[in-house]
Protein backbone atom coordinates (compact mmCIF):
# COMPACT_ATOMS: atom_id res chain seq x y z
CA UNK A 1 0.00 0.00 0.00
CA UNK A 2 2.67 2.41 1.04
CA UNK A 3 4.86 1.58 -1.90
CA UNK A 4 1.89 1.82 -4.21
CA UNK A 5 1.14 5.41 -3.26
CA UNK A 6 4.73 6.45 -3.74
CA UNK A 7 4.79 4.92 -7.17
CA UNK A 8 1.53 6.53 -8.24
CA UNK A 9 2.63 9.85 -6.79
CA UNK A 10 5.90 9.82 -8.63
CA UNK A 11 4.14 8.64 -11.78
CA UNK A 12 1.67 11.52 -11.69
CA UNK A 13 4.56 13.83 -10.92
CA UNK A 14 6.28 12.79 -14.12
CA UNK A 15 2.98 13.01 -15.93
CA UNK A 16 2.27 16.61 -14.96
CA UNK A 17 5.81 17.64 -15.78
CA UNK A 18 5.64 15.97 -19.19
CA UNK A 19 2.18 17.42 -19.68
CA UNK A 20 3.40 20.91 -18.89
CA UNK A 21 6.31 20.51 -21.28
CA UNK A 22 3.92 19.34 -23.97
CA UNK A 23 1.63 22.27 -23.27
CA UNK A 24 4.50 24.72 -23.63
CA UNK A 25 5.55 23.12 -26.91
CA UNK A 26 1.96 23.22 -28.13
CA UNK A 27 1.50 26.87 -27.22
CA UNK A 28 4.80 27.70 -28.89
CA UNK A 29 3.81 25.88 -32.06
CA UNK A 30 0.41 27.59 -32.08
CA UNK A 31 2.04 31.00 -31.66
CA UNK A 32 4.49 30.15 -34.43
CA UNK A 33 1.72 29.20 -36.84
CA UNK A 34 -0.35 32.22 -35.82
CA UNK A 35 2.60 34.48 -36.64
CA UNK A 36 3.25 32.75 -39.97
CA UNK A 37 -0.41 33.01 -40.94
CA UNK A 38 -0.42 36.64 -39.83
CA UNK A 39 2.50 37.37 -42.15
CA UNK A 40 0.74 35.52 -44.95
CA UNK A 41 -2.34 37.68 -44.37
CA UNK A 42 -0.21 40.84 -44.63
CA UNK A 43 1.22 39.72 -47.96
CA UNK A 44 -2.11 38.53 -49.34
CA UNK A 45 -4.17 41.51 -48.17
CA UNK A 46 -3.51 43.88 -51.11
CA UNK A 47 -4.24 41.11 -53.60
CA UNK A 48 -7.48 40.20 -51.82
CA UNK A 49 -8.48 43.88 -51.66
CA UNK A 50 -7.87 44.23 -55.40
CA UNK A 51 -9.77 41.07 -56.30
CA UNK A 52 -12.75 42.10 -54.14
CA UNK A 53 -12.83 45.60 -55.59
CA UNK A 54 -12.56 44.35 -59.17
CA UNK A 55 -15.84 42.44 -58.81
CA UNK A 56 -17.85 45.26 -57.22
CA UNK A 57 -19.96 47.88 -58.96
CA UNK A 58 -19.29 51.54 -58.13
CA UNK A 59 -22.19 51.62 -55.70
CA UNK A 60 -20.64 48.80 -53.68
CA UNK A 61 -17.22 50.48 -53.92
CA UNK A 62 -18.65 53.65 -52.41
CA UNK A 63 -20.64 51.97 -49.65
CA UNK A 64 -18.60 48.96 -48.54
CA UNK A 65 -15.16 48.67 -47.02
CA UNK A 66 -12.07 47.43 -48.85
CA UNK A 67 -12.18 44.14 -46.96
CA UNK A 68 -15.83 43.34 -47.55
CA UNK A 69 -16.66 40.52 -49.91
CA UNK A 70 -18.45 41.48 -53.15
CA UNK A 71 -21.96 40.25 -52.38
CA UNK A 72 -23.31 41.04 -55.85
CA UNK A 73 -20.28 40.21 -57.97
CA UNK A 74 -20.04 41.65 -61.46
CA UNK A 75 -17.42 41.12 -64.15
CA UNK A 76 -18.23 44.46 -65.76
CA UNK A 77 -15.08 46.16 -64.35
CA UNK A 78 -12.93 43.47 -66.01
CA UNK A 79 -14.76 43.89 -69.31
CA UNK A 80 -14.40 47.67 -69.11
CA UNK A 81 -10.72 47.51 -68.18
CA UNK A 82 -10.08 45.16 -71.07
CA UNK A 83 -11.97 46.90 -73.84
CA UNK A 84 -13.42 50.30 -73.01
CA UNK A 85 -11.72 52.09 -70.11
CA UNK A 86 -10.09 55.41 -70.95
CA UNK A 87 -6.31 55.32 -71.23
CA UNK A 88 -5.38 58.94 -71.66
CA UNK A 89 -7.66 60.40 -74.30
CA UNK A 90 -8.65 57.20 -76.07
CA UNK A 91 -11.17 54.91 -74.40
CA UNK A 92 -10.09 51.56 -75.78
CA UNK A 93 -9.20 49.56 -72.68
CA UNK A 94 -5.96 47.69 -72.09
CA UNK A 95 -6.42 45.12 -74.86
CA UNK A 96 -4.21 46.78 -77.47
CA UNK A 97 -1.47 47.49 -74.90
CA UNK A 98 -1.47 43.86 -73.92
CA UNK A 99 -0.74 43.00 -77.52
CA UNK A 100 2.01 45.66 -77.66
CA UNK A 101 3.64 44.10 -74.64
CA UNK A 102 3.52 40.55 -76.00
CA UNK A 103 5.07 41.76 -79.26
CA UNK A 104 7.81 43.42 -77.22
CA UNK A 105 8.43 40.67 -74.66
CA UNK A 106 8.72 37.62 -76.90
CA UNK A 107 11.56 38.73 -79.20
CA UNK A 108 13.42 40.54 -76.42
CA UNK A 109 13.32 37.50 -74.13
CA UNK A 110 14.32 35.02 -76.83
CA UNK A 111 17.18 37.04 -78.27
CA UNK A 112 18.66 38.19 -74.98
CA UNK A 113 18.52 34.67 -73.51
CA UNK A 114 20.15 33.08 -76.55
CA UNK A 115 22.99 35.57 -76.76
CA UNK A 116 23.42 35.37 -72.99
CA UNK A 117 23.83 31.60 -73.20
CA UNK A 118 26.53 31.86 -75.85
CA UNK A 119 28.29 34.64 -73.96
CA UNK A 120 28.18 32.73 -70.71
CA UNK A 121 29.67 29.69 -72.40
CA UNK A 122 32.47 31.73 -73.95
CA UNK A 123 33.26 33.47 -70.67
CA UNK A 124 33.19 30.42 -68.41
CA UNK A 125 34.83 27.69 -70.43
CA UNK A 126 37.65 29.43 -72.26
CA UNK A 127 40.49 31.59 -71.23
CA UNK A 128 41.57 34.50 -73.32
CA UNK A 129 43.42 37.65 -72.54
CA UNK A 130 41.27 40.07 -70.59
CA UNK A 131 38.37 37.64 -70.10
CA UNK A 132 37.92 38.73 -66.50
CA UNK A 133 38.07 42.41 -67.26
CA UNK A 134 35.52 41.92 -70.03
CA UNK A 135 33.22 40.05 -67.66
CA UNK A 136 33.61 42.63 -64.91
CA UNK A 137 32.74 45.46 -67.27
CA UNK A 138 29.71 43.60 -68.62
CA UNK A 139 28.62 42.70 -65.09
CA UNK A 140 28.56 46.31 -63.98
CA UNK A 141 26.14 46.90 -66.86
CA UNK A 142 23.61 44.91 -64.83
CA UNK A 143 23.75 47.42 -62.04
CA UNK A 144 24.31 50.75 -63.74
CA UNK A 145 21.21 52.90 -63.15
CA UNK A 146 19.34 53.57 -66.38
CA UNK A 147 18.80 57.22 -65.45
CA UNK A 148 22.33 57.99 -66.51
CA UNK A 149 21.68 56.52 -69.99
CA UNK A 150 18.18 57.78 -70.74
CA UNK A 151 19.09 60.94 -72.65
CA UNK A 152 21.66 59.27 -74.96
CA UNK A 153 19.20 56.40 -75.53
CA UNK A 154 16.52 58.90 -76.59
CA UNK A 155 18.98 60.50 -79.03
CA UNK A 156 20.06 57.15 -80.48
CA UNK A 157 16.50 55.91 -80.91
CA UNK A 158 15.66 59.13 -82.76
CA UNK A 159 18.75 58.66 -84.94
CA UNK A 160 17.70 55.14 -85.95
CA UNK A 161 14.04 56.10 -86.41
CA UNK A 162 12.96 53.89 -83.50
CA UNK A 163 11.36 56.55 -81.31
CA UNK A 164 7.90 55.87 -79.92
CA UNK A 165 7.61 52.29 -81.08
CA UNK A 166 7.78 48.74 -79.90
CA UNK A 167 10.86 48.12 -82.09
CA UNK A 168 12.91 50.53 -80.02
CA UNK A 169 11.81 48.87 -76.78
CA UNK A 170 12.70 45.41 -78.14
CA UNK A 171 16.16 46.71 -78.93
CA UNK A 172 16.58 48.29 -75.48
CA UNK A 173 15.34 45.31 -73.51
CA UNK A 174 17.53 42.96 -75.51
CA UNK A 175 20.59 45.15 -75.19
CA UNK A 176 20.23 45.98 -71.51
CA UNK A 177 19.18 42.41 -70.72
CA UNK A 178 22.46 41.00 -72.03
CA UNK A 179 24.60 41.70 -68.95
CA UNK A 180 22.12 39.83 -66.73
CA UNK A 181 21.60 36.85 -69.06
CA UNK A 182 25.34 36.60 -69.65
CA UNK A 183 25.94 36.57 -65.91
CA UNK A 184 23.27 33.92 -65.27
CA UNK A 185 24.70 31.53 -67.84
CA UNK A 186 28.31 32.29 -67.03
CA UNK A 187 27.80 31.44 -63.36
CA UNK A 188 25.82 28.33 -64.27
CA UNK A 189 28.45 27.05 -66.69
CA UNK A 190 31.21 27.66 -64.15
CA UNK A 191 29.85 24.60 -62.34
CA UNK A 192 30.07 22.40 -65.46
CA UNK A 193 33.25 20.28 -65.22
CA UNK A 194 35.98 21.41 -67.56
CA UNK A 195 36.68 17.73 -68.32
CA UNK A 196 33.46 17.56 -70.36
CA UNK A 197 34.72 20.28 -72.66
CA UNK A 198 38.12 18.67 -72.83
CA UNK A 199 36.63 15.31 -73.77
CA UNK A 200 34.54 16.90 -76.50
CA UNK A 201 37.63 18.63 -77.85
CA UNK A 202 39.57 15.37 -77.88
CA UNK A 203 36.74 13.91 -79.93
CA UNK A 204 37.24 16.73 -82.39
CA UNK A 205 34.30 18.94 -81.46
CA UNK A 206 34.89 22.63 -82.05
CA UNK A 207 33.62 25.67 -80.17
CA UNK A 208 30.11 25.66 -81.63
CA UNK A 209 29.70 21.88 -81.82
CA UNK A 210 30.58 21.61 -78.13
CA UNK A 211 28.09 24.32 -77.34
CA UNK A 212 25.23 22.81 -79.33
CA UNK A 213 25.78 19.15 -78.47
CA UNK A 214 27.20 19.23 -74.93
CA UNK A 215 26.42 22.52 -73.24
CA UNK A 216 22.98 23.48 -74.54
CA UNK A 217 21.27 20.15 -73.74
CA UNK A 218 22.39 20.40 -70.12
CA UNK A 219 21.30 24.02 -69.67
CA UNK A 220 17.53 23.51 -69.57
CA UNK A 221 17.13 24.64 -65.94
CA UNK A 222 19.16 27.80 -66.53
CA UNK A 223 17.28 28.52 -69.75
CA UNK A 224 14.00 28.32 -67.83
CA UNK A 225 15.37 30.55 -65.06
CA UNK A 226 16.65 33.14 -67.54
CA UNK A 227 13.51 33.17 -69.68
CA UNK A 228 11.29 33.62 -66.62
CA UNK A 229 13.55 36.34 -65.23
CA UNK A 230 13.61 38.25 -68.51
CA UNK A 231 9.90 37.77 -69.10
CA UNK A 232 9.01 39.12 -65.65
CA UNK A 233 11.42 42.03 -65.87
CA UNK A 234 10.41 43.12 -69.38
CA UNK A 235 6.67 42.62 -68.86
CA UNK A 236 6.88 44.76 -65.72
CA UNK A 237 9.08 47.46 -67.26
CA UNK A 238 7.90 50.99 -66.77
CA UNK A 239 10.95 53.26 -67.09
CA UNK A 240 11.84 52.54 -70.73
CA UNK A 241 8.19 52.47 -71.73
CA UNK A 242 7.32 55.80 -70.14
CA UNK A 243 10.52 57.47 -71.34
CA UNK A 244 10.42 56.43 -74.99
CA UNK A 245 6.82 55.68 -75.96
CA UNK A 246 3.49 57.45 -75.69
CA UNK A 247 -0.11 57.20 -76.83
CA UNK A 248 -1.09 53.86 -78.32
CA UNK A 249 2.47 52.49 -78.58
CA UNK A 250 3.10 52.16 -74.85
CA UNK A 251 3.57 48.81 -73.12
CA UNK A 252 1.06 47.60 -70.54
CA UNK A 253 2.48 49.12 -67.35
CA UNK A 254 2.59 52.61 -68.83
CA UNK A 255 -0.95 52.15 -70.13
CA UNK A 256 -2.08 50.96 -66.71
CA UNK A 257 -0.56 53.99 -65.04
CA UNK A 258 -2.28 56.22 -67.62
CA UNK A 259 -5.58 54.44 -67.06
CA UNK A 260 -5.37 55.04 -63.32
CA UNK A 261 -4.31 58.66 -63.72
CA UNK A 262 -7.04 59.42 -66.28
CA UNK A 263 -10.19 60.41 -64.58
CA UNK A 264 -12.76 63.07 -64.64
CA UNK A 265 -15.12 63.04 -61.70
CA UNK A 266 -15.63 59.91 -59.67
CA UNK A 267 -12.69 57.51 -59.85
CA UNK A 268 -13.75 54.06 -61.10
CA UNK A 269 -11.65 52.15 -58.57
CA UNK A 270 -13.22 48.85 -59.57
CA UNK A 271 -11.96 49.28 -63.14
CA UNK A 272 -8.56 50.40 -61.87
CA UNK A 273 -8.21 47.27 -59.76
CA UNK A 274 -9.43 44.99 -62.55
CA UNK A 275 -6.93 46.66 -64.90
CA UNK A 276 -4.11 46.25 -62.39
CA UNK A 277 -4.94 42.57 -61.95
CA UNK A 278 -5.16 42.06 -65.71
CA UNK A 279 -1.72 43.61 -66.09
CA UNK A 280 -0.24 41.54 -63.28
CA UNK A 281 -1.83 38.28 -64.38
CA UNK A 282 0.82 37.00 -66.84
CA UNK A 283 3.72 37.33 -64.41
CA UNK A 284 1.61 35.98 -61.54
CA UNK A 285 0.64 32.93 -63.58
CA UNK A 286 4.26 32.29 -64.48
CA UNK A 287 5.17 32.66 -60.80
CA UNK A 288 2.54 30.18 -59.69
CA UNK A 289 3.51 27.67 -62.37
CA UNK A 290 7.27 28.01 -62.09
CA UNK A 291 7.92 29.75 -58.78
CA UNK A 292 10.93 27.58 -58.07
CA UNK A 293 12.73 28.86 -61.17
CA UNK A 294 11.69 32.43 -60.48
CA UNK A 295 13.18 32.28 -57.00
CA UNK A 296 16.32 30.69 -58.38
CA UNK A 297 16.66 33.61 -60.76
CA UNK A 298 16.21 36.05 -57.90
CA UNK A 299 18.89 34.36 -55.88
CA UNK A 300 21.22 34.06 -58.87
CA UNK A 301 20.74 37.75 -59.55
CA UNK A 302 21.27 38.69 -55.95
CA UNK A 303 23.69 36.53 -54.11
CA UNK A 304 26.15 35.88 -56.90
CA UNK A 305 26.89 39.45 -57.90
Amino acid at each position, binding site marked *: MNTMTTITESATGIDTRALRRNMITLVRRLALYAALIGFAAFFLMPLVVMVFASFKDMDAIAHTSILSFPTHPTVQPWVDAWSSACVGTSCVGLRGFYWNTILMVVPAVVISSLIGAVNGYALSKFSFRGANLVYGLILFGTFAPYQVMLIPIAKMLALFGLSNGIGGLILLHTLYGLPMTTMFFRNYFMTVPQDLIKAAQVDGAGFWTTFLLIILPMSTPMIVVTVIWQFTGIWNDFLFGVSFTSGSSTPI*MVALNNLVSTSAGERPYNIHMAGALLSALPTLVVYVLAGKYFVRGLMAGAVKG
Partner: protein
Amino acid sequence: MSTKTITPPDLAASPPKPKRFRLSPAALTITPTFILVAISVYGFIGWSTVISFTDSKFFPKYDFVGLAQYYRLWESDRWNTSVINLVLFSVGFSVISLLLGLIIAIFLDQKVRAEGALRMIYLYPMAISLIVTGIAWKWILNPGTGIEHLLKGWGFENASFNWLVDPNMAVYTLVIAAVWQTAGFVMAIFLAGLRGVDAEIVKAAQLEGAGAFRIYTQIIIPMLRNSMFSAIVILIYQAVRSFDLVVALTNGGPGYSSDLPTTFMYNSTFLRGQMAQGSASAVMILLVVVAIVVPYLYGEFKREHNDNHH
Protein backbone atom coordinates in the same frame (compact mmCIF):
# COMPACT_ATOMS: atom_id res chain seq x y z
CA MET B 1 47.93 37.91 -56.57
CA SER B 2 50.22 39.12 -59.26
CA THR B 3 49.17 42.40 -60.78
CA LYS B 4 50.86 41.78 -64.11
CA THR B 5 48.79 38.91 -65.40
CA ILE B 6 45.13 39.40 -66.21
CA THR B 7 44.52 35.67 -66.27
CA PRO B 8 42.78 34.82 -62.99
CA PRO B 9 43.80 31.81 -60.93
CA ASP B 10 40.76 29.66 -61.79
CA LEU B 11 41.15 30.09 -65.51
CA ALA B 12 44.90 29.64 -65.30
CA ALA B 13 44.23 26.31 -63.67
CA SER B 14 42.13 25.13 -66.61
CA PRO B 15 43.89 23.09 -69.27
CA PRO B 16 46.05 24.84 -71.87
CA LYS B 17 44.21 25.93 -74.97
CA PRO B 18 44.23 23.27 -77.65
CA LYS B 19 45.30 24.33 -81.14
CA ARG B 20 41.73 24.14 -82.40
CA PHE B 21 40.82 27.19 -80.34
CA ARG B 22 43.85 29.20 -81.35
CA LEU B 23 41.74 31.89 -83.00
CA SER B 24 39.81 31.99 -79.75
CA PRO B 25 36.20 31.78 -80.91
CA ALA B 26 35.35 32.58 -77.30
CA ALA B 27 36.94 36.02 -77.52
CA LEU B 28 35.32 36.59 -80.92
CA THR B 29 31.94 35.51 -79.57
CA ILE B 30 31.96 37.90 -76.68
CA THR B 31 33.25 40.82 -78.76
CA PRO B 32 29.89 42.03 -80.20
CA THR B 33 28.27 42.08 -76.75
CA PHE B 34 31.29 43.76 -75.29
CA ILE B 35 31.23 46.48 -77.93
CA LEU B 36 27.48 47.01 -77.50
CA VAL B 37 27.83 47.25 -73.71
CA ALA B 38 30.85 49.51 -74.07
CA ILE B 39 28.77 51.90 -76.17
CA SER B 40 25.34 51.63 -74.57
CA VAL B 41 26.52 51.58 -70.96
CA TYR B 42 29.90 53.26 -70.71
CA GLY B 43 29.60 55.44 -73.81
CA PHE B 44 26.18 56.65 -72.74
CA ILE B 45 27.35 57.31 -69.21
CA GLY B 46 30.13 59.44 -70.68
CA TRP B 47 27.67 61.24 -72.93
CA SER B 48 25.32 62.02 -70.03
CA THR B 49 28.26 63.26 -68.00
CA VAL B 50 29.26 65.59 -70.83
CA ILE B 51 25.69 66.94 -71.03
CA SER B 52 25.79 67.61 -67.28
CA PHE B 53 28.63 70.09 -67.92
CA THR B 54 26.54 72.04 -70.45
CA ASP B 55 23.55 74.31 -70.34
CA SER B 56 21.22 71.95 -72.26
CA LYS B 57 17.48 72.57 -71.87
CA PHE B 58 15.14 70.62 -74.18
CA PHE B 59 17.93 69.36 -76.45
CA PRO B 60 21.61 68.63 -75.90
CA LYS B 61 23.63 71.77 -76.55
CA TYR B 62 27.38 71.71 -76.13
CA ASP B 63 28.05 75.11 -74.56
CA PHE B 64 30.08 74.13 -71.53
CA VAL B 65 29.40 75.76 -68.19
CA GLY B 66 31.75 73.71 -66.00
CA LEU B 67 30.28 72.58 -62.72
CA ALA B 68 27.49 75.16 -62.70
CA GLN B 69 24.74 72.53 -63.07
CA TYR B 70 26.01 70.71 -60.01
CA TYR B 71 26.05 73.89 -57.92
CA ARG B 72 22.54 74.64 -59.11
CA LEU B 73 21.46 71.09 -58.32
CA TRP B 74 22.68 71.20 -54.74
CA GLU B 75 21.16 74.63 -54.22
CA SER B 76 17.81 73.37 -55.48
CA ASP B 77 15.29 72.81 -52.73
CA ARG B 78 13.55 70.14 -54.78
CA TRP B 79 16.75 68.12 -55.25
CA ASN B 80 17.68 68.35 -51.58
CA THR B 81 14.19 67.21 -50.64
CA SER B 82 14.59 64.20 -52.92
CA VAL B 83 17.98 63.33 -51.40
CA ILE B 84 16.63 63.57 -47.85
CA ASN B 85 13.67 61.45 -48.94
CA LEU B 86 16.04 58.87 -50.39
CA VAL B 87 17.90 58.64 -47.07
CA LEU B 88 14.66 58.30 -45.08
CA PHE B 89 13.20 55.85 -47.57
CA SER B 90 16.27 53.64 -47.94
CA VAL B 91 16.94 53.46 -44.19
CA GLY B 92 13.31 52.73 -43.32
CA PHE B 93 12.85 50.30 -46.17
CA SER B 94 16.12 48.43 -45.55
CA VAL B 95 15.83 48.16 -41.77
CA ILE B 96 12.20 47.01 -41.76
CA SER B 97 12.71 44.59 -44.67
CA LEU B 98 15.77 43.10 -42.95
CA LEU B 99 14.00 42.63 -39.62
CA LEU B 100 10.81 41.27 -41.15
CA GLY B 101 12.69 39.05 -43.58
CA LEU B 102 14.91 37.67 -40.81
CA ILE B 103 12.01 36.99 -38.45
CA ILE B 104 9.95 35.25 -41.13
CA ALA B 105 12.96 33.19 -42.21
CA ILE B 106 13.67 32.06 -38.64
CA PHE B 107 10.00 31.21 -38.03
CA LEU B 108 9.83 29.34 -41.31
CA ASP B 109 12.97 27.39 -40.43
CA GLN B 110 11.23 25.59 -37.51
CA LYS B 111 10.22 22.55 -39.57
CA VAL B 112 6.74 23.93 -40.19
CA ARG B 113 4.02 22.34 -42.27
CA ALA B 114 3.22 23.79 -45.70
CA GLU B 115 6.54 25.64 -45.78
CA GLY B 116 6.52 25.64 -49.57
CA ALA B 117 3.07 27.21 -49.78
CA LEU B 118 3.90 29.86 -47.18
CA ARG B 119 7.12 30.72 -48.99
CA MET B 120 5.18 31.13 -52.23
CA ILE B 121 2.81 33.57 -50.49
CA TYR B 122 5.63 35.62 -48.96
CA LEU B 123 7.46 35.92 -52.26
CA TYR B 124 4.73 36.52 -54.82
CA PRO B 125 4.91 40.35 -54.61
CA MET B 126 8.37 40.10 -56.23
CA ALA B 127 6.69 38.86 -59.42
CA ILE B 128 4.33 41.83 -59.55
CA SER B 129 5.07 45.14 -61.20
CA LEU B 130 5.71 48.03 -58.83
CA ILE B 131 3.09 49.96 -60.77
CA VAL B 132 0.47 47.40 -59.73
CA THR B 133 1.80 47.45 -56.17
CA GLY B 134 1.60 51.23 -56.16
CA ILE B 135 -1.99 51.25 -57.43
CA ALA B 136 -3.11 48.73 -54.81
CA TRP B 137 -1.46 50.54 -51.90
CA LYS B 138 -2.62 53.91 -53.14
CA TRP B 139 -6.17 52.71 -52.71
CA ILE B 140 -5.48 51.00 -49.38
CA LEU B 141 -3.71 54.05 -47.95
CA ASN B 142 -6.15 56.61 -49.36
CA PRO B 143 -7.94 58.06 -46.30
CA GLY B 144 -11.26 58.25 -48.15
CA THR B 145 -11.36 54.66 -49.35
CA GLY B 146 -8.82 52.54 -47.51
CA ILE B 147 -7.71 51.71 -44.00
CA GLU B 148 -8.96 54.95 -42.43
CA HIS B 149 -12.37 54.42 -44.01
CA LEU B 150 -12.33 50.80 -42.81
CA LEU B 151 -11.48 51.75 -39.22
CA LYS B 152 -14.21 54.43 -39.17
CA GLY B 153 -16.65 51.82 -40.46
CA TRP B 154 -15.69 49.63 -37.50
CA GLY B 155 -16.69 52.42 -35.14
CA PHE B 156 -13.34 54.14 -34.55
CA GLU B 157 -14.67 57.57 -35.45
CA ASN B 158 -11.38 59.34 -34.70
CA ALA B 159 -9.27 56.92 -36.70
CA SER B 160 -6.83 58.76 -38.89
CA PHE B 161 -4.34 57.33 -41.33
CA ASN B 162 -3.61 59.99 -43.87
CA TRP B 163 0.11 59.58 -44.58
CA LEU B 164 -0.57 59.54 -48.31
CA VAL B 165 -1.79 63.14 -48.30
CA ASP B 166 0.51 64.41 -45.53
CA PRO B 167 3.64 66.04 -47.03
CA ASN B 168 5.68 65.04 -43.96
CA MET B 169 4.62 61.41 -44.04
CA ALA B 170 4.05 60.60 -47.73
CA VAL B 171 7.58 59.22 -48.11
CA TYR B 172 6.79 56.56 -45.50
CA THR B 173 3.93 55.20 -47.58
CA LEU B 174 6.66 54.31 -50.06
CA VAL B 175 8.39 52.42 -47.25
CA ILE B 176 5.23 50.41 -46.51
CA ALA B 177 4.64 49.38 -50.11
CA ALA B 178 8.31 48.67 -50.81
CA VAL B 179 8.65 46.52 -47.67
CA TRP B 180 5.56 44.59 -48.73
CA GLN B 181 7.15 44.02 -52.13
CA THR B 182 10.62 43.00 -50.94
CA ALA B 183 10.46 41.45 -47.44
CA GLY B 184 9.77 37.99 -48.89
CA PHE B 185 12.89 38.24 -51.00
CA VAL B 186 14.99 39.10 -47.96
CA MET B 187 13.33 36.13 -46.24
CA ALA B 188 14.50 33.88 -49.09
CA ILE B 189 18.08 35.15 -48.76
CA PHE B 190 18.11 34.52 -45.01
CA LEU B 191 16.42 31.15 -45.36
CA ALA B 192 19.15 30.04 -47.75
CA GLY B 193 21.69 31.25 -45.17
CA LEU B 194 19.93 29.43 -42.32
CA ARG B 195 19.91 26.18 -44.29
CA GLY B 196 23.66 26.52 -44.57
CA VAL B 197 24.25 26.82 -40.81
CA ASP B 198 26.11 23.85 -39.38
CA ALA B 199 23.61 21.80 -37.35
CA GLU B 200 26.43 20.37 -35.20
CA ILE B 201 27.28 23.77 -33.74
CA VAL B 202 23.64 24.40 -32.87
CA LYS B 203 23.35 20.96 -31.30
CA ALA B 204 26.46 21.53 -29.22
CA ALA B 205 25.04 24.81 -27.92
CA GLN B 206 21.74 23.10 -27.07
CA LEU B 207 23.60 20.43 -25.11
CA GLU B 208 25.28 23.14 -23.11
CA GLY B 209 21.82 24.37 -22.19
CA ALA B 210 21.61 27.53 -24.28
CA GLY B 211 18.04 28.67 -24.95
CA ALA B 212 16.60 29.22 -28.42
CA PHE B 213 16.84 33.00 -28.14
CA ARG B 214 20.51 32.89 -27.15
CA ILE B 215 21.34 30.36 -29.85
CA TYR B 216 19.85 32.66 -32.48
CA THR B 217 21.23 35.98 -31.27
CA GLN B 218 24.70 34.75 -30.33
CA ILE B 219 25.40 31.88 -32.71
CA ILE B 220 23.14 31.68 -35.75
CA ILE B 221 22.54 35.32 -36.66
CA PRO B 222 26.26 36.17 -36.53
CA MET B 223 26.79 33.25 -38.91
CA LEU B 224 24.40 34.88 -41.40
CA ARG B 225 26.88 37.70 -41.97
CA ASN B 226 27.19 37.06 -45.70
CA SER B 227 23.43 36.86 -46.26
CA MET B 228 23.00 40.03 -44.24
CA PHE B 229 25.61 41.84 -46.29
CA SER B 230 24.09 40.73 -49.61
CA ALA B 231 20.63 41.74 -48.44
CA ILE B 232 21.76 45.20 -47.30
CA VAL B 233 23.53 45.93 -50.59
CA ILE B 234 20.53 44.76 -52.63
CA LEU B 235 18.04 46.72 -50.54
CA ILE B 236 19.95 49.99 -50.71
CA TYR B 237 20.57 49.49 -54.41
CA GLN B 238 16.85 48.92 -54.97
CA ALA B 239 15.98 51.96 -52.90
CA VAL B 240 18.29 54.15 -54.97
CA ARG B 241 16.76 52.88 -58.21
CA SER B 242 13.11 53.08 -57.07
CA PHE B 243 11.07 54.92 -59.64
CA ASP B 244 7.95 52.99 -60.70
CA LEU B 245 6.62 52.76 -57.16
CA VAL B 246 6.90 56.49 -56.56
CA VAL B 247 5.18 57.30 -59.83
CA ALA B 248 2.29 54.94 -59.12
CA LEU B 249 1.85 55.56 -55.39
CA THR B 250 2.49 59.24 -54.68
CA ASN B 251 3.79 60.61 -57.99
CA GLY B 252 6.23 62.57 -55.86
CA GLY B 253 3.45 64.40 -54.07
CA PRO B 254 1.85 66.12 -52.28
CA GLY B 255 3.77 68.83 -54.14
CA TYR B 256 7.26 67.38 -54.43
CA SER B 257 7.35 66.16 -50.84
CA SER B 258 7.94 62.50 -51.75
CA ASP B 259 10.19 62.98 -54.79
CA LEU B 260 13.21 60.70 -55.05
CA PRO B 261 16.34 61.45 -57.12
CA THR B 262 15.06 59.17 -59.89
CA THR B 263 11.75 61.03 -60.22
CA PHE B 264 13.62 64.34 -60.00
CA MET B 265 15.79 63.19 -62.91
CA TYR B 266 12.79 62.11 -64.98
CA ASN B 267 10.83 65.29 -64.35
CA SER B 268 13.79 67.58 -65.07
CA THR B 269 14.68 65.81 -68.28
CA PHE B 270 11.39 64.84 -69.85
CA LEU B 271 8.81 67.21 -68.37
CA ARG B 272 10.54 70.46 -67.45
CA GLY B 273 13.11 70.80 -70.22
CA GLN B 274 16.11 70.91 -67.90
CA MET B 275 18.21 68.28 -69.55
CA ALA B 276 21.51 69.39 -68.00
CA GLN B 277 19.99 69.37 -64.51
CA GLY B 278 18.58 65.92 -65.25
CA SER B 279 21.99 64.71 -66.36
CA ALA B 280 23.73 66.12 -63.31
CA SER B 281 21.23 64.36 -61.05
CA ALA B 282 21.68 61.12 -63.02
CA VAL B 283 25.44 61.34 -62.50
CA MET B 284 24.86 61.73 -58.76
CA ILE B 285 22.64 58.62 -58.78
CA LEU B 286 25.35 56.73 -60.66
CA LEU B 287 27.99 57.74 -58.12
CA VAL B 288 25.89 56.39 -55.27
CA VAL B 289 25.31 53.10 -57.09
CA VAL B 290 29.02 52.77 -57.90
CA ALA B 291 29.93 53.39 -54.26
CA ILE B 292 27.57 50.62 -53.14
CA VAL B 293 27.83 48.03 -55.89
CA VAL B 294 31.45 48.05 -57.03
CA PRO B 295 32.99 47.00 -53.68
CA TYR B 296 30.28 44.34 -53.37
CA LEU B 297 30.90 42.92 -56.85
CA TYR B 298 34.62 42.97 -56.24
CA GLY B 299 34.13 41.05 -53.01
CA GLU B 300 31.90 38.44 -54.68
CA PHE B 301 34.38 38.09 -57.48
CA LYS B 302 37.27 37.50 -55.11
CA ARG B 303 35.28 35.04 -53.06
CA GLU B 304 34.47 33.08 -56.21
CA HIS B 305 38.17 32.84 -57.05
CA ASN B 306 39.05 31.75 -53.55
CA ASP B 307 36.33 29.10 -53.68
CA ASN B 308 37.73 27.78 -56.92
CA HIS B 309 41.21 27.74 -55.51
CA HIS B 310 40.48 25.55 -52.54
